[in-house]
């Protein structure tokens, strides 16, 4: 499995549809403070099934929907779609005949959530199962958020155990 493309609409500061292509080995994301780089990281965690608003720096999950600016109104839905190409040994067999797998998550301000795999409605559990099968899963070490590196070293030994358990 290789990352192919991320599509963000209405998620955090991404008012308009934004497509990030990930076809290279090393992609760097740059820009001034506060312009949205870590929000892209949050979008990836969220579409992979993150259920804790706190891990996305919010107070409630509704915080991920574009809240407006001083001049723009808020939106009523956030949508993130992450697309993978199915090369490589980690593709779950039921998708191996397709060239791409796309995972989409939507949240409405009403509180309603929708989940899709290859445009087919699924449950959140199907998404987390898919990622667990591909080796991305809940790996605590696939995404190193801003400020987290220091915590790994200063964490209590019991918390560090959790990382090893992820490998087991």
């Amino acid at each position: 499995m290789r990352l192919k493309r991320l599509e963000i609409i209405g998620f955090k500061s991404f008012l308009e549809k934004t497509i990030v292509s990930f076809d290279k080995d090393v992609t760097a994301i740059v820009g001034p403070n506060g312009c949205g780089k870590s929000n892209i990281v949050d979008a990836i965690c969220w579409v992979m099934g993150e259920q804790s608003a706190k891990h996305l720096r919010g107070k409630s999950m509704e915080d991920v929907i574009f809240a407006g600016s001083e001049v723009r109104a808020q939106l009523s839905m956030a949508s993130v779609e992450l697309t993978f190409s199915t090369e490589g040994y980690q593709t779950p067999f039921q998708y191996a005949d397709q060239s791409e797998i796309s995972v989409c998550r939507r949240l409405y301000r009403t509180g309603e959530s929708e989940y899709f795999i290859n445009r087919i409605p699924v449950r959140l559990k199907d998404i987390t199962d898919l990622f667990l099968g591909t080796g991305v899963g809940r790996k605590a070490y696939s995404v190193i958020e801003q400020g987290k590196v220091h915590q790994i070293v200063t964490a209590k030994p019991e918390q560090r155990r959790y990382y090893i358990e992820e490998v087991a």
Partner: protein
Amino acid sequence: TKEKFLEAFRMVDEKFQVIFPHLFKGGKAKLLLINENDLLESGVDIIAQPPGKKLQSISLLSGGEKALTAVSLIFAMFLIKPSPFCILDEVDAPLDDVNVGRYNDIIREMTGKTQFVVITHNKNTMETADVLYGVTMQEAGVSQLVSVEMH
């Protein structure tokens, strides 16, 4: 299960003992089980000694040394159970120029099995990437992506 944990622990420790001196150009490090008799609950300690220095508690390490030690451990886990991608958000912030270079070198070494996305303010890290995307807020509060080809 107890056996699975112990096996994972030993494999990660083995890699960690190789990667740390590779990143620090010397020195040694290893993982330690706080309580070897309690494999279901025992915490995991990190022993780390940068080259030429005395072995002391890792709490005394500098900000940059702690960051590199964490990177060594994370990549040790990656080598045991690779993930298709790895996202690193400003992990290079506390590093000096020499260590930023080593950080980017080890990322490049790991790209065989893993795709990397790095968020950075560091010019050296930008230069080693294959492609740069710029995120801007031309309009306050609204993010936009700009492609900034490097090569």
